[in-house]
């Protein structure tokens, strides 16, 4: 028996509300012509089943239909096609904090919200102490919610929501409540709910959250199911597609067009030898505009000169969004003998892996005389590429890391006393 069965689900939306009066006045003035609305399918041909006790994450770009799907499963939006079958009591972690009544005390709010969330009054009463304890509000619980800070309100709302004990839990981007410690606590609580056998349906933009919680992942794109399967494989597919599509996705906010070359602005040198087309490719040789953190990058460029110049040195560098140089390499130190002549030459360098932090980076290329005394051509931070990562932490690097701890029993205790210089 399945907890959720979705069959050929479809939902269409009006493109524009033009021609559909939204007031009675408009209805009378339009003479009930009721202009034809244009529709588009926000979701279509969605079919999947979730067995009891499975945790399924939904991923996809903004507008892929994730929240619509969640709301249709919750029965809040009615589908235009297909059907949803639910086998159990539904609970939801959506819009945390939206249902709070400012003028009532925390206690009164717990009852109202608990019942609204689907509990009987007796059930709220039975769990009241747990809810208060979980919220960590202490004596504040009897004060009006209007005196609470935003964090306190969220804690109260979340505490009620996670005590409903549903059989199916719908979660929409809400596990970011309060401070780090409370977030961790919420995550633990959701995990405990999952481990108790509750079916979870989670919409999230945070891949690490999905990896932590979900058994399966449903990957939506433009209202269709692209893939539905075990978390690791599906997330890999999703993330690689994000990289491929990066041009027209969230990465769009990063500068994507090559900066135009302007002499003495971002281009320097005598031009006795010139750098032509510069290309960025994946290690497999495919032209790309973005890589995932930890993937490789190939920089490839053409150069030529009227006279033969021998030797020349080529330089390639990668600059961070804040114009710091992350890496600069050149052919001289690499022991590569290079010369330039009327015949166009191609040079490529492959970074096997770039463990860079998420952001917009620029590639710099340069061509110098063999003794570095003369700069022929230098394109400073001209060629962009994006690095896509999971989390925004600090620093430039995201090397693969592994933490470990070890208890040192029997070892001498660390001496914490301060030794002055005497």
């Amino acid at each position: 028996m399945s907890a959720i069965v979705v069959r050929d689900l479809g939902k269409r939306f009006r493109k524009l509300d033009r021609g559909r009066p939204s007031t009675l006045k408009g209805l009378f003035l339009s003479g009930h012509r009721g202009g034809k609305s244009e529709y588009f399918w926000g979701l279509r041909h969605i079919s999947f089943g979730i067995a009891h006790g499975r945790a399924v994450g939904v991923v996809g770009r903004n507008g892929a239909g994730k929240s619509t799907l969640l709301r249709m499963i919750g029965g809040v939006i009615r589908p235009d096609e297909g059907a949803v079958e639910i086998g159990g009591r539904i609970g939801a972690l959506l819009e945390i904090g939206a249902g709070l009544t400012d003028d009532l005390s925390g206690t009164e709010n717990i009852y109202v919200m608990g019942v609204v969330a689907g509990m009987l009054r007796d059930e709220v009463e039975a769990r009241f102490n747990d809810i208060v304890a979980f919220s960590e509000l202490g004596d504040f619980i009897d004060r009006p919610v209007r005196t609470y800070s935003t964090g306190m309100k969220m804690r109260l709302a979340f505490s009620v929501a996670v005590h409903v004990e549903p059989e199916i839990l719908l979660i929409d981007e809400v596990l970011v409540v309060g401070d780090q410690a409370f977030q961790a606590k919420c995550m633990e609580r959701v995990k405990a709910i999952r481990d108790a056998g509750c079916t979870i349906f989670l919409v999230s933009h945070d891949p690490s959250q999905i990896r932590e919680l979900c058994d399966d992942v449903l990957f939506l794109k433009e209202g269709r199911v692209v893939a539905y399967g075990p978390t690791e494989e599906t997330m890999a597919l999703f993330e690689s597609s994000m990289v491929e599509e990066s041009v027209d996705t969230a990465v769009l906010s990063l500068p994507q067009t090559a900066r135009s070359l302007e002499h003495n602005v971002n281009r320097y040198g005598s031009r006795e030898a010139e750098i032509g087309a510069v290309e960025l490719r994946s290690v497999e040789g495919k032209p790309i505009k973005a890589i995932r953190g930890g993937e490789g990058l190939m920089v490839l460029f053409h150069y030529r000169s009227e006279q033969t110049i021998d030797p020349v040195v080529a330089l390639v560098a990668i600059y961070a969004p804040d114009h710091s140089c992350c890496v600069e390499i050149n052919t001289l130190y690499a022991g590569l003998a290079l010369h330039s002549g009327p015949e166009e030459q191609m040079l490529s360098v492959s970074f096997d892996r770039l463990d860079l932090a998420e952001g917009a980076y620029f590639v710099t290329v340069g061509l110098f005389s063999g003794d570095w005394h003369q700069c022929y051509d230098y394109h400073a931070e001209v060629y962009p590429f994006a690095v896509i990562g999971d989390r925004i932490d600090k620093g430039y690097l995201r090397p693969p890391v592994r933490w470990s701890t070890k208890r040192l029993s029997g070892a001498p205790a660390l001496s914490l006393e301060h030794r002055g210089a005497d």
Partner: protein
Amino acid sequence: MCYANSELHYRRMLLICRPVEGPNRMQAWQRTIYLRDLLRELIVRDFKVRYQRSLLGIGWSWLKPLAQLVVFLFLFGTVLPLDIPYYASFLFAGVLAWSWFGNAAAAAATSITANPELVRRPGFPVRLLPVLVVMNEAIHFVLALPILLAVVAWEVGAPAATLAVLPLVMIVQFVFTLSIAYGVAAAHVRFRDTQDAVGIILMVAFYLTPVFYEPTKLHAGYALINRFNPMAVVINAYRDVLIARQWPDFAGLFAVLLLSGLLMAVCMWFFNRQSAGFVEEL
């Protein structure tokens, strides 16, 4: 193994997933208890929010009908006497009953749009919101009832056995008001000027209902007002029971109940049809 092909996966899934067995809702009885709890909590919430922080508290619920009462009493009892016996009681019964109906119908307009967080909540019975509005106003009616009874006792005398059917009249009014509330609530989500239209219609309806006058006293032809206006039937029933101390027009009340049922069916149909789109319209 990613199911990159959703069609293929669909077929796989059909093999795995049999249709969900059994009722997916709570047991009917538990559901009833749940709806009762929900309604109670929401009524208490609205009541507390309305009066908890005010100086007069619950006194506010009496103030508006009392003010109306004083104005009409002065106007049509003294300035332009209408010569209606027991005018204070007559007026009070009319004003209270109308307040319940009018306030509920007006508040119903925003009952859906003012509660988006409830409407968007999976499993929340949106149908409860118009009931909540009508119940909120019913509570004010009930709270003011002792004052009305006191006025009647002072003006007319001790209540008679006919008082026993007062709850029946209230039920009829409740059902009628609720049917209107459903229509108004659903219409307002779709047409955001419904609220204004309802305000005007209620204003006209107030004067077409014998709240402060007695139409048959002016001209026999005006009896139509008493006959074809559901609220007139209800208000007259209150007066029969309280003031005239006679049995109300049961046939009339039954007709109103029948009409309400019919109206309720139509409005519920409209409400259900619209409620599919509530979340999108909010």
